C-alpha cells in the first residue's frame, strides 16, 4: 500500500543529509497515480490518439482498410465535390441555425414562465423534460408516425374538410429538415429549459424587487436586466446545443433515413456510410475531420470567452 512504501522511503530520507534530494515525484503516493492510469490512457490513446490518427489517415487513399498511401488533399477535394456532402452540410447548417434559435427561445421562455412562482411547477417541468430521457430513435419513430401523411397531421386536417392542406415533411424534400427540427426541438428544449431555469434561480431576488420599485415592466426587466446577467448560461447552453447538433445522426436514421432521396442527409451519416457502407474509409476520415474542424471553430470563441474572460476578471 501507499503508506508502507512511503514510510520506507522516509526512513531512507531521514538518514540522508540535508542536501539529499526529495523522493521521486512518481513514487510519492503511487496508488493515486496507478488509479488514474485508465483515465490517462483513455485521454491519450482514444481521445487524443484516435483524433490524430483519423486526421492523419484522412490524407491517405484508404479504402476498405486503412493504409498509409498518401493522397494529399484528394479526399477533401472529392468530399467537397460530392453533392451528398454539400447537401449534408447545408442541411446541418439550416438545422443547426434553426435549432439553436428555437431551442434558446423556447427553452428560455418556458424557464421564464416556470420561474413565475406558479403552482405545479414540478409537473410542468417533468412534462417538458421527459422527452430528453428518450432516445433519438424513439423520438424519430414517433414523429415519423405523427407526421405520416395519410394518418397523421396532414390526414387529420384534410379530414376536417381542408382538402388542399399539405404538410408532409417526410416526403417533401423542401421541408424535410423542418420535420426533423420539430422532433429535435421536442426532445432537446427541456434540457435547455432546465439550464435556463437554474440560471434564473441564481439571480438575486433583490434585482426583481429593485425593478419593481423602479416600475419597470416584467418583460422589459427580462430583456434589459435578466438576459444580460445570464450571459454565461446562454453561452453554456449554446455550446451544448451546438455540440449536440454536430452529432445529429440517430434522429435522421430513425425518422427519415436521410430521405427522401438524399434531402435529409447529415455529415455524421455521411461519415458512417462512407466508413461502413461504401468502404471508403478515406472519405469517412476526411468528412469526420471536417466535422471536428467545425466543432473547433465553435469551441475556440467559447473557450476564449470562458477562459480569456477569467483572466481579465
Amino acid at each position: 500500500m501507499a503508506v508502507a512504501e512511503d514510510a520506507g522511503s522516509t526512513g531512507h530520507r531521514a538518514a540522508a543529509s540535508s542536501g539529499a534530494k526529495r523522493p521521486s515525484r512518481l513514487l510519492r503516493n503511487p496508488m493515486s497515480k496507478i488509479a488514474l492510469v485508465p483515465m490517462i490512457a483513455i485521454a491519450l490513446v482514444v481521445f487524443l490518439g484516435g483524433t490524430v490518427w483519423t486526421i492523419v489517415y484522412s490524407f491517405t487513399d484508404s479504402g476498405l482498410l486503412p493504409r498509409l498511401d498518401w493522397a494529399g488533399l484528394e479526399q477533401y477535394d472529392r468530399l467537397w465535390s460530392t453533392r451528398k456532402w454539400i447537401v449534408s452540410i447545408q442541411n446541418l447548417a439550416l438545422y443547426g441555425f434553426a435549432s439553436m434559435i428555437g431551442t434558446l427561445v423556447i427553452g428560455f421562455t418556458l424557464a421564464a414562465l416556470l420561474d413565475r412562482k406558479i403552482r405545479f411547477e414540478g409537473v410542468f417541468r417533468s412534462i417538458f423534460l421527459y422527452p430528453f430521457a428518450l432516445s433519438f430513435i424513439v423520438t424519430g419513430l414517433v414523429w415519423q408516425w405523427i407526421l405520416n401523411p395519410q394518418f397523421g397531421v396532414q390526414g387529420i386536417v384534410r379530414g376536417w374538410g381542408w382538402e388542399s392542406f399539405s404538410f408532409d415533411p417526410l416526403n417533401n424534400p423542401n421541408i424535410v429538415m423542418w420535420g426533423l427540427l420539430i422532433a429535435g426541438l421536442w426532445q432537446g428544449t427541456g434540457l435547455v429549459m432546465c439550464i435556463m431555469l437554474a440560471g434564473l434561480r441564481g439571480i438575486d431576488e433583490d434585482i426583481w424587487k429593485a425593478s419593481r420599485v423602479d416600475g419597470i415592466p416584467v418583460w422589459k426587466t427580462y430583456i434589459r436586466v435578466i438576459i444580460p446577467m445570464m450571459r454565461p448560461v446562454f453561452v453554456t447552453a449554446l455550446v451544448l446545443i451546438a455540440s449536440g447538433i454536430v452529432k445529429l445522426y440517430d434522429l435522421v436514421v430513425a425518422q427519415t433515413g436521410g430521405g427522401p432521396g438524399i434531402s435529409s442527409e447529415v455529415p455524421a451519416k455521411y461519415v458512417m456510410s462512407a466508413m461502413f457502407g461504401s468502404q471508403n474509409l478515406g472519405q469517412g476520415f476526411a468528412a469526420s475531420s471536417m466535422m471536428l474542424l467545425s466543432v473547433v471553430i465553435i469551441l475556440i470563441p467559447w473557450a476564449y470567452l470562458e477562459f480569456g474572460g477569467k483572466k481579465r476578471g
Partner: protein
Amino acid sequence: MNDMSQTATGNPSVSIQDLDLSFGAVKVLQGLNLDIAEGEFLVLLGSSGCGKSTLLNCIAGLLDVSDGQIWIKGKNVTWAEPSDRGIGMVFQSYALYPQMTVKGNLSFGLKNARVPKDEIERRVARAAEVLQIEPLLDRKPGALSGGQRQRVAIGRALVRDVDVFLFDEPLSNLDAKLRADLRVELKRLHNQLQNTMIYVTHDQVEAMTLADRIAIMKGGEIMQLGSPDEIYNRPRNRYVADFIGSPSMNFMDGHLENGVFSTDELRMPMDGYEFTARQPGGPAILGIRPEHVVTGELVSGAPVQHEVTVDLVEPMGSDTLVWAKLGEQIFRIRMDGQSRVKPGETMVIGLDPSRASLFDAGTEDRL
C-alpha cells in the same frame, strides 16, 4: 530573521529549518526557521494569507515543501507521511467522518495503524474521559453540537498518543461564548498533558491567552517570535505593533535626535525608553497604545503632557474610546468606561516614553 530560532531552549520538539514553499512562481513560505521546545504552546498568528496555515500543513505533511527540513522529536520527517510523524491535528471545520460514530472517529486512525483492540479501547476511553465526551461515544457527528464536535476532533488527536498537537483555527467556527469556554479548556488540557502544541489562529485574544510564545507571520515570514508580553510591549516592527492590540496603536511620524522625538506639534524626550541600538537618529515613527495614554488626575504624573481636542466618543461600557485630534493627527485614547467627555472639548493627556515604541521611518524596525 534567521536568528529567531535561537530563542527556544533545550532540545526542540519541532524544528523547522530553512523552509521554502512555493506554488509555481508564488512564494508562500521563504527561508523559515523555527524551533519549538518540548511542551511549548506556540501560536502562529497572522492575518489571512500570511502562510500560517500553510506552515502548519507543512509540519503535518499535508503539503510538500519546496526546500528545507522539518524535524519532529529528533527525526527528519520532511518527507514522511502525515500519519508517521507523531502528530495529531485538529481542524477548523472539525473534519469528523460523518458516517462514523464518535467512537469510530476516535478509533479510525488507530485501526489504520493496526493498534491492538484492547489498546484502542483503553485510549478511546481515556480520551473520552479527559474531554468528558463519554455519553456521546455512540452518536454520529451530525447529532452533536459545535462544541461537542470540536471536543471529539480534539479527542481524535488525543488518542493518537503523540507528542505534537497541531491546531488549525480550531475555535473559529464556534460562537463567541463557546469559543471563550473552549479556550479555557484548551489551556487546561495543555497544562494537564504538557504536549507540544502548535496553534494557528488569526484571533489575537486566543494567541495572547494561550501561547507560551507567539510567532507573528506576514507574507510567509515570521515577523516576530516571542512571549505574548514581549510581543505586546516590545513589538519588533511597526507591522507587529499595529497588528497586536485593539484598538490599534497610534502612530506619529516625526524625527528622533539626541534621544528626543519631535513632530510639529509634540516634543517628547525619550527618557526611560530602551533603545535597541545606541544613539539612533533620523526620521522615526512613534507608537503609543491607546490604553497607555493617561487622562484626568494621572496626567500630572506623566513625563510628557499634551493638549488634544476630542473629536468623537465611542462608549463601550467597560471602557470608552475617544478619538481625539493632536494637531492634525487622529489619536485614539482608551479611557475608563464611566468617563464623561464630549466632542469639541479639549483635554490634557499624559504620555510615558518608557511604554511607547519607536520605529525607523524607513525600515519600520524597532529602534
